């Protein structure tokens, strides 16, 4: 079983975590100004890369806190974990 490094608790087994999809999808600044298409993209459309993906995870069966991770969707390898208030890390 894969170990995932919670930024607060350290490495824990994968079953303790739940997945939150793409990270860095901010709520629209001016929701009233959005067109139907822009709303659709905010609600339904998420990136689906093969390779590095910035995504949200939650340590559900541990500290119950959310965090972000850069994970490779082809290898499933976690390359970075970082706090929600950290900027998206740049990986060379």
């Amino acid at each position, binding site marked *: 079983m*894969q170990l995932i490094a919670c930024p607060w608790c350290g490495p824990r087994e994968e079953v303790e975590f739940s997945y939150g999809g793409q990270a860095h999808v901010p709520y629209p600044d001016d929701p009233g100004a959005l067109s139907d298409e822009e709303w659709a993209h905010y609600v*339904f459309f998420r*990136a689906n890369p093969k390779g590095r993906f910035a995504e949200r995870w939650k340590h559900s069966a541990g500290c119950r806190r959310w965090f972000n991770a850069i994970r490779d*969707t082809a*290898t499933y390898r976690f390359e970075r974990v970082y706090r929600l208030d950290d900027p998206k890390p740049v990986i060379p």
Partner: protein
Amino acid sequence: MSPRTPGADLPEHPDSLWRSPEPERSYDVVIVGGGGHGLATAHYLAKNHGITNVAVLEKGWLAGGNMARNTTIIRSNYLWDESSAIYEHALQLWEGLEEDLGYPILFSQRGVLNLAHTLQDVRDSVRRVEANKLNGIDAEWLEPDEVRKICPVVNTSTDIRYPVLGATYQPRAGIAKHDYVAWGFARRADEAGIDLVQDCEVTGFDTDGDRVTGVRTTRGTISAGTVALCAAGHTSVLTDMLGIRVPVQSHPLQALVSELLEPVHPTVVMSNAVHVYVSQAHKGELVMGAGVDSYNGYGQRGAFHVIERQMAAAVELFPVFARAHLLRTWGGIVDTTPDASPIVGRTPYDNVYLNCGWGTGGFKATPGIGSALAHTIAHDEPHPYVAPFTLDRFVTGALVDEHGAAAVAH
């Protein structure tokens, strides 16, 4: 004890069913993806529309992706009119497919039971049965004692974690042998002169305004009159190259088989609530599928705890399976959508058609989507069966919400 060796009545593997041609530099139609949907689309382009200047481009080998990895369940008992129409169209084609392809596909209409474990499941199931009947689809609601008559190995006692409160039953549903289905389509497409080009990965597209003029591949650039994307879990990789946003998320979906057993399981049993679905293949192995792994993944493998949970559910529902040995597990990559319905039809490019988002249910649709997509390409107009499944339904709000309602296990 059966006197026959399991699998003794299966046809021998053929030597060669199709050519392996070098790609030409230009085709009227280029289909990206040599799985079930791509091959079926090629077959019906030739058979129904006389369009044979066609290439099917496959980055690996034919039908080596989800077509080789699914659990082969075929049914049409979906809730909504739009879904039941396309899946029932597919089922009717399945019923004549062996004759059409001139190839054995071992289509066995042994029925499917979709179990209900909670009062809400029961209500949803009865509603779906009534909706199916209105759409002319065979469907029945069965009480637990009737479930036991059809499938005696299901544990219908009341003291289990997920008691069986009843099930929907579609007698015409069943299974087919997925490899033979792919081979049958491939053989017929090849006979019609369609080039099935393997080991040919698409690396980019040449565009001119709102048209795609060429498909760049690892075997050179191929110009195309029309392009159809049938790449299932890898759709986003292609649409990212085209700059088209598509609301699909690729997830691993795992399945497994047991060792070969004597016939014990006469039908197909699906349980949405506990995420397991089981049939017994012709050779005798139990074929089981799980729900999707939670995270996005292209790795064609998933986490072991998902299999473990699935086995726990399977053994409780089928106590007789407890001593069966697991032979192997594998994963495919399924492209899920927000409303658990496929996305088929036009794209922002005039001559590119999209066929994706079938999630966990693509196999059963194979002949149905093949014929409807071929029609769509031939007439440059979405076939009525695929017309509701546009990309822009996510903007207009005309979703076809099959989550949960149609026993879609994700």
